[in-house]
């Protein structure tokens, strides 16, 4: 489903190269974990996948269902089925959360040639998804993410992910800032989305999240490249020995 080939990317503003030849393949139905120390390029990789303009791809390609997405803008990528759960979701004053969900859901449906959802059906879906995440509907009347706690923001991201039904979910440090109860709720939300025709990429610094979202594959990103790939045991090995041992090996 996702093939990243020799991907090089730099910060558009100052030309600093962050990704230096990432290779990664994630199949439909697979949950892949990307781990790595701070500054290894994890968040950059998620932004480049989503199409953020602050980064320039200088070499390589990203194929989604066999087609390059490099020429697509973020909205087109989302409509094609890619979803990024942000590490730091933006607070957007003046845009009501419910209104935002309505516009986003219907924009994607329209782009996919589906009929737009009417308000009652939309409300029903939102209510159902919110309940499963133990979210208060009152929150959805507030402006998007404004005044939400860290945990509420992460839940709101997962809520959006559930409602938008993407084919490829990329979760950027979804565990940061969550206590253990919130972590379990968020992980349950993600696990509920596991399906044979969906791929999930979990980006994390710590192994903790992977106790709750058990990956099929683990990839270690270091200095902008995937230096090691393995099965879920690799995460435990990293937890035990830290990145240092592995980095020595890679160097």
């Amino acid at each position, binding site marked *: 489903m996702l093939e990243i080939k020799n991907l090089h990317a730099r910060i558009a503003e100052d030309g600093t190269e962050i990704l230096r030849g990432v290779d990664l393949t994630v199949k439909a139905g697979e949950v892949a974990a990307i781990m790595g120390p701070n500054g290894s390029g994890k968040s950059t990789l998620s932004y480049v996948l989503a199409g953020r303009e602050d980064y320039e791809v200088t070499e390589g390609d990203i194929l989604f269902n066999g087609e390059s997405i490099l020429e697509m803008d973020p*909205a087109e990528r989302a409509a094609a089925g890619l979803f990024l759960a*942000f590490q730091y979701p*933006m607070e*957007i004053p003046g845009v009501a959360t419910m209104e*935002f969900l309505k516009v986003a859901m219907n924009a994607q449906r329209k782009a996919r040639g589906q009929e737009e959802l009417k308000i009652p059906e939309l409300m029903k879906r939102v209510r159902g998804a919110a309940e499963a995440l133990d979210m208060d509907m009152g929150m959805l009347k507030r402006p998007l993410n404004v005044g939400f706690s860290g945990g509420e923001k992460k839940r709101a991201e997962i809520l959006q992910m559930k409602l938008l039904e993407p084919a490829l979910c990329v979760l950027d440090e979804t565990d940061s800032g969550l206590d253990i109860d919130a972590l379990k709720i968020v992980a349950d939300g993600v696990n509920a989305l596991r399906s044979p025709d969906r791929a999930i990429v979990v980006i994390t610094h710590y192994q903790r999240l992977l106790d709750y979202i058990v990956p099929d594959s683990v990839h270690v990103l270091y200095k902008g490249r995937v230096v090691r790939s393995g099965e879920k045991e690799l995460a435990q090995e990293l937890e035990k020995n830290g990145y240092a041992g592995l980095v020595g090996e890679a160097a």
Partner: protein
Amino acid sequence: MNIQTQIRRTAAEDALLQAFADRSEYLPGDTEVAERRSAAVELLKRGLPNRKVEAWHYTDLRRLLSSVPAFDLTAHAVPREPLLAGSAVLPVLNGVVGEAEVPEGVSVASMAGKLTDGSLASLLAPVDADDTVSAINSAFAADGFAIDIPAGAVLERPIELQNVQAGGQVHTRFAVRAGEGAKATIVERQTGEGDALVSSVSHLDVGDGAEILYLIIQEQPEGASHLGQINVRIGKDAKLTLFVMNAGGKLVRQELRLVAEGEGSEFRLRGVNLLSGETHCDVTMVLDHVGPATVSTETIRNVVTDKAEGAFQGQIRVARQAQKTDAKMACNTLLLSDEGGFSSKPELEIFADDVACGHGATVTEIEADHLFYLMARGIDEKTARGLLVKAFVAEVIEELENELVIEALEAKLDAWFAEHG
């Protein structure tokens, strides 16, 4: 020494004086009104203000008012659907009152009548030599409405004053008096379809304990020049929310002159300026806190596209006896074009020593982070930008608390963004 500092008149200045010479004998009024008109014309003979006049620094009227059309007495204007469903509509159609719906318990008179019998002659009084809007209007004002809302009246239906132009020159005067404890929503619509010169001066007296929501909605076509002014007195413990929306016109000056006279009165100004094309739009407020313990907040939000230029001058004067005054003013601009601009000039003059006054101004662009976030959810760039721009001004509208009003104004926003977004 005899130095003649006679400046050559502009075509617009000549046209204004010529129009007065042509029209004066047909204008309504008793002797006092006629004298006041002549006095106003004397002011106009000194020429239109340029940018050296402080009050007109951001709007060089002498340069910007490049031409003045002749009166067009054959032009025909039709009333508009009211902003708020169910309103009693009082239309002025190309300068002459049309058929008015008189709300129950409210007394309504034509301004022409009030000028003919001289009972409102005192309104034709520019406050100083720079009060050009009042001078032009005082010289020419022929009609409008005078409305009296009796003490204690609570009006269920909003009142909508419409000033609809169809071209030429239109000079309208409105006067609204809300008695003690009265409650009402009043809409002032300034619109039309011609390349007119419009002046519209209003007077609003908010009696003790009254609660008034007054909305000025200016949507002139892109060829029209609009000179607006509202003069307000706020009584003891009274509450006034004044909402001003400018969403049209070629040259727009909207002056707000307010006196928070009564102790404990509350005043809110909420303004939205949607500027596109080559509009020049200036909102100038002078607020006097005279009574003690008066509270005011002023929030102005501007969206600037194309080559539009805007300005907000906000002057707050706190008199010596107006202790415990609390005033907060903010002017925020979203600049969507490199060719547009907005100037903000806050001015505080404080003569009391126990007051809290503050002001702030910002000019920003759409935040790239916000845009990326919305697009990452599949919302196309144009729609995402539209949502963010609308959010920026909708925040101010939502403070009005009245659902009917909020919905109607948001519909106006949507219509504007559909055309200019």
